């Protein structure tokens, strides 16, 4: 029953590690990891359909295949810890404990959405849960994370901040500037690099000579590690260690969660520019199938139990769609100038 990973894949994906829960992790916790990953998957699969049916619009990027990273990472956090996001933020919201209804409403552009219909997918944010917002400009969330860590440090909250970013983002100037500053001042921020080896249609190896990106950490005098980004436990363990360090005042770390983008860059991308045959075998590394397989094989959960979780998730997403499509309202033009400035101030 166990998923077999092709030799060819393992040769190319040298950071593969088999799933293994950390010492002492409870069943409910493991099930929660599964639940969150699967919820992301279902959410983004649905979003793709909705987009293709013209029910939602704008630019929407799916978190499919990356679920283990957001979920593994956020599981190492306390509720008050913060995360910054990328253009691919749905997974970050869910992993941080956000509300799929409010997120779906936002994607429908509805007033009841997280951002009152002003942000959409690319700017999805759940600030009360510490999800400091997706951004459509690659790399622009980097200094935000450092600033959040600076605030935590100066205010003495003891919180850490996670800075999610992509391999494409590593070549933005602010990536470098941000990590250097965080390192110089030992700020409590962990840079989690979602290395799917692609930036839209550009392969990492064509734009960076050294593709083992974690190696850059040494230049800043901080720890850099690479982990199997399809493996939720591996991500969790690496992040946990870095979080403990950061909370201890020992400063930032760079964690490269390596995986491969399995779907298109954005929901409607058919990837004509890519050799999909070469991608196909990597589906065997799918973090959710692997997790399910692991749970079954190690008898952590029975097939029925998992099925029930899956069914609940399907319903949760259906409910969210129904809520967003039918129960929510379009923002009125009277709300147009709201929240440009604080405290209700309006400057036209």
């Amino acid at each position: 029953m166990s998923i077999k990973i092709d030799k060819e894949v393992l040769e190319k994906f040298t950071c593969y590690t088999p799933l293994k829960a950390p010492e002492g992790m409870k069943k409910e916790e493991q099930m929660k990891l599964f639940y969150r990953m699967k919820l992301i998957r279902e959410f983004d699969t649905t979003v793709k359909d909705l987009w293709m049916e013209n029910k939602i619009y704008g630019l929407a990027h799916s978190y499919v295949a990356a679920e283990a990273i957001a979920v593994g990472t956020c599981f190492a956090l306390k509720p008050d810890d913060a995360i910054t996001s990328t253009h691919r933020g749905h997974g970050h919201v869910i992993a941080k404990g956000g509300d799929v209804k409010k997120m779906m409403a936002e994607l429908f552009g509805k007033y009841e959405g997280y951002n009152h219909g002003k942000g959409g997918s690319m700017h999805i944010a759940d600030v009360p849960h510490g999800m400091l917002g997706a951004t459509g400009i690659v790399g622009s969330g980097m200094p935000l994370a450092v600033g959040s860590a600076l605030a935590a440090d100066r205010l003495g909250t003891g919180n850490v901040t996670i800075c999610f970013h992509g391999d494409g983002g590593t070549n933005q100037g602010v990536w470098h500037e941000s990590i250097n500053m965080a390192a110089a001042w030992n700020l409590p921020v962990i840079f989690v690099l979602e290395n799917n080896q692609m930036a839209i249609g550009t392969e990492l190896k064509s734009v960076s000579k050294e593709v083992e990106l974690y190696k850059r950490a040494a230049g800043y005098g901080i720890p850099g590690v690479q982990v199997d980004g399809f493996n939720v436990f591996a991500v969790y363990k690496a992040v946990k260690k870095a979080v403990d360090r950061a909370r201890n005042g020992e400063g930032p770390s760079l964690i490269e969660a390596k995986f491969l983008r399995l779907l298109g860059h954005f929901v409607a991308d058919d990837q004509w520019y890519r050799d999909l045959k070469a991608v196909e075998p990597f589906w065997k590394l799918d973090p959710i199938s692997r997790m399910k397989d692991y749970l079954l094989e190690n008898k952590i959960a029975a097939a029925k139990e998992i099925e029930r979780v899956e069914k609940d998730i399907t319903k949760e997403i259906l409910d969210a769609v129904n809520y967003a499509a039918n129960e929510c309202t379009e923002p009125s033009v009277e709300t147009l100038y709201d929240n440009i400035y604080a405290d209700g101030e309006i400057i036209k």
Partner: protein
Amino acid sequence: MRNITVRESLNEAMRQEMEIDETVIVMGCDVAIRGNPFGVTKGLLRQFGEKRVIDTPISEAAFTGMGVGAAAMGLKPIVEILYSDWITLASDQIVNMAAKMRYMFGGNIEMPLVVRAPFGAGGGNAAQHSQSFENWFNHIPGLKVVAPITPYDLKGMLITAIRDKNPVIFFEHKRAYQMKGEVPEELYTVPFGKAAIRREGKDVTIVSYSMMSIHAMEAAEELAEDGIDCEVIDLRSILPMDYETVMNSIEKTNRVVVTQEANLRGGFAADIVAEIIDRGFDLLDTAPVRVGGLNVPMPYNMGLENYVIPGKETIKKAIRKALKD
């Protein structure tokens, strides 16, 4: 003549110029393998190879700056900023280097750099993928700034831009890529600094560029049915700017509406109005009327977005205002 799309006309301009000039290169995020996400640079990689059509890392500042250096040293780079909203990232290299180097360095270099900047709103792309910054660059001596809209002009002016020895910011409207028009097959140029009169009229002058020219024409056609005769000017070029054509028109109509898609405050329309005032205050029977986007970050919701972007109806209203008294 053939009818081709804006996308094709731009593509053809680059292709044909690259065929006759080996120093022309194209670079930006995803311009090579994907032919840019809008398809504008499609096929260039296959024809010219990766030495001349370069997929860059997401390093807008440095790849634009690389264009600056390459232009100074003998190439003619066409750099693409996929959404002009992010030209912020490259603005130091454009404003403080490309625009000033020839002047600062005693005239010893040329800077044949083209920065292609798809701009404008539409489609629910929200606050970071919808902006129009033409007036930022209009403010910077040393640059040229153009924003043509017809497939004919886009091809001809992109060729002009490539051949120009100065840095040119080339604004293409993202919603125009599918629009079609007559475009000659051969290479030709359309000069900078010459506006086009799209429609002659005697009652009011509408000054427009890029997408607003399309809407101005729509407005003019509809108002014609009410007996209002609009003259529609498509500036095409922002810097240099053809005030001669504008003032000649106002001399005839004595009324003017100036349009831009960018949010109104701090925009180019204000500059045009102020210049018109300088040049012909006494020609004006009524106050010049500006049309522009509302002063808000672009909201995602498409209903709100439509409300923010000026269109045919906004322009019609402005024309009626200019005709009052």
